């Protein structure tokens, strides 16, 4: 991770590269879903890996208001960090190098703000994930009791196939009859984009305080915000 940041810095990028992040070139993003607008996505930086349990533990230690025994019910549902052994200890079900899950949108946002970043938007995330291998078999299978560690590897890791990931504008995902039954296909640019439909269906059903055993996140950073 450090070497990538160094390379990025040496490449003459105006701002210092955020540690652990990779620059994503911008481009046109068209949602394959109905009512999908086109967006011209500006270049941005994205975490190479999802946020881990170890990283999130450091966050709640530094910001105790986000510990599971102190957090406002406004900002997370009762399953927030439920698999951790204690509010300040990971335990067997939350491996340090596994992605953190059971976090709400508010908690994810707060973490990214603490790191000097933010959550990626839908267009940014989908653009970055467009060419990553996306195997539908992951979507079919229930969640294991203990999540595996981040796989690592070149480029941006685990965008698909490890955990769902929060985006900043999840509340922009269509809900209701737009996503129900056949209605989901009306006007869709690509009704065969099943995995995309599955992501949108999830986002359309989430609330900001929701937590899920397979929902984590990673952070994005503006090009010049640092």
């Amino acid at each position, binding site marked *: 991770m450090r070497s990538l940041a160094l390379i990025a810095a040496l490449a003459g990028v105006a701002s210092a590269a955020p540690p652990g992040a990779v620059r994503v070139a911008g481009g046109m993003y068209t949602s394959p879903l109905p009512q999908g607008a086109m967006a011209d996505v500006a270049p941005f930086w994205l975490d190479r890996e999802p946020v881990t349990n170890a990283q999130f533990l450091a966050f709640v230690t530094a910001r105790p208001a986000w510990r599971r025994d102190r957090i406002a019910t406004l900002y997370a549902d009762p*399953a927030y960090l439920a698999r951790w052994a204690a509010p300040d200890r990971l335990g067997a079900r939350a491996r340090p190098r596994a992605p953190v899950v059971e976090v709400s949108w508010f908690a994810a946002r707060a973490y990214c703000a603490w790191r000097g970043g933010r959550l990626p938007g839908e267009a940014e995330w989908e653009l970055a994930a467009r060419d990553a291998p996306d195997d*539908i*078999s*992951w*979507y*079919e*299978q*229930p*969640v294991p*009791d203990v999540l595996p560690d981040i796989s690592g590897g070149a480029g941006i890791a685990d965008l698909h196939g490890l955990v769902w990931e929060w985006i900043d504008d999840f509340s922009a995902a269509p*809900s*209701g*009859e737009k*996503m*129900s*039954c*056949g209605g*989901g*296909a009306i006007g869709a640019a690509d*009704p*065969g984009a*099943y995995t995309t*439909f*599955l992501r*949108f*269906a*999830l986002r*359309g*059903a*989430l609330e900001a305080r*929701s*937590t*899920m*055993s*397979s929902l984590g996140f990673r952070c994005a950073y503006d090009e010049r915000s640092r």
Partner: protein
Amino acid sequence: MGTRTATVAGVLSKICLSLVVVAAACHREPAPPPPAPAAPPPADVTSTPTGEPIVAQLTSAPAVPTRPYRQHPAHVIVNLVVKEVIKEISPGTRYAFWTFGGDVPGKFIRVRQGDVVEVHLKNDPSSKLVHNIDFHAVVGPGGGAMSSMTAPGHESQFTFRARYPGLYVYHCATAPVPMHVANGMYGMILVEPPEGLPRVDREYYVMQGEVYTTGAYHAPGLQDFDMNKGIDERPTYVLFNGAEGALVGDKALSAKTGDRVRIFIGNGGPNLVSSFHVIGGIFDTVYPEAGAVPQHNVQTTLIPSGGAAIVELTMDVPGTFTLVDHSLFRAFQQGAVGQLVVSGPTRDDLLTAKQFDRPYDGTEYAGGMVVPQISAAPTGPLDDAGRLELGKATFGRICAMCHQPQGQGVAGTFPPLAGSDYLASAAHDTIIGHVLHGLQGPVTVNGATYNGAMPPMQFLSDDEIAGALTYVRSAFGNHLDAVKPAEVAKVRNRTASAP
């Protein structure tokens, strides 16, 4: 004089009595008409439920919950848990199903028309996906789907009034809906009319559905969903109740002879229409498409994708009755078979087992000739003249094809009968044997050797053979004695019982 007076008095008194009677009769009120039978009050399907809510008893296929016996609508609570599970669809082959209640098809729900149904849809925390539910019994956008989008680890609640009686499919309607249905998210809800369905002895719940896997039929291991096969409507499996063998062997449906069996049969799809048939059964009643108007005496009924039917059969004959989708490759190659085993005393008066097994040597097709089926020997005994007539006709129809109409034969191929020295010298039994059993191998007639194959003609009756031989032996210049039917019978029986 006294007598006459008495008589007059008698007459008068009779007259007066009659008058009194008549008068009395005139003054009686006309009898009121008998009261008309009171029309039964309409069943209550609209009142607001009072009393404690009832928690609905939900069952896994093939079981069906007991009928609700209620005079009035109730407040019914339905607790339905969505669980994503990996199950076997065939020994050694597994698939990741998404289920209502842990099984495919989902739990059966049974309510009464007019009930106010409060649905609690819970999505297990271990689920990967959001799910919801669309009840075809519900009128309103999405059939409940929009009121029930539920993320893993959450519960949604909504309420509807079951206004329409019938048997309705429910299914998950989250995008992409074909995948959610293909992965097992379908079930049925029965909204019973207030008077209840007519009584039967057994009720069963069966639902057909397809599975689309990347691997071939019976490929082992955990199989993935194949969207392209789904789009092309080429399933790998077509199953009753979510697995091969779900209704087979020790899991077969059961009944006793005399039972009236009702099957609530649904079709989750997502693509195919089913041609539902019970082999050896006739549906004496079908509610096509689970509507209100019954049909009778139906062999095979269509069940639309996303639809259902109610079928009833009376099982009078014992045995194993196979349930199939009569698009038969689905039954044979893709798993669409189930069984209904009926036990009880045999009913030979309705269907016998095999009664006879006789040898059949294909004599209808003799050496390339198609020999017309000859009906049974004419009823009633024949006299000699009649037999000769029959024999002449038989010769013309059959023997002449080879031996020619004048018995002249074909040189080198078929021996002549006219003036045949063989015919003149052979014993009756030998000649009869040739007709009954055929003749193979060389035979010399009038100095020429013939080495063909005369086919057996056991299908000819004794009268026909005796008549034909008698004709041949007295025609074409032959002056040989007649052959009797009893002789033919003797040869026939002798060789039949020969070891």
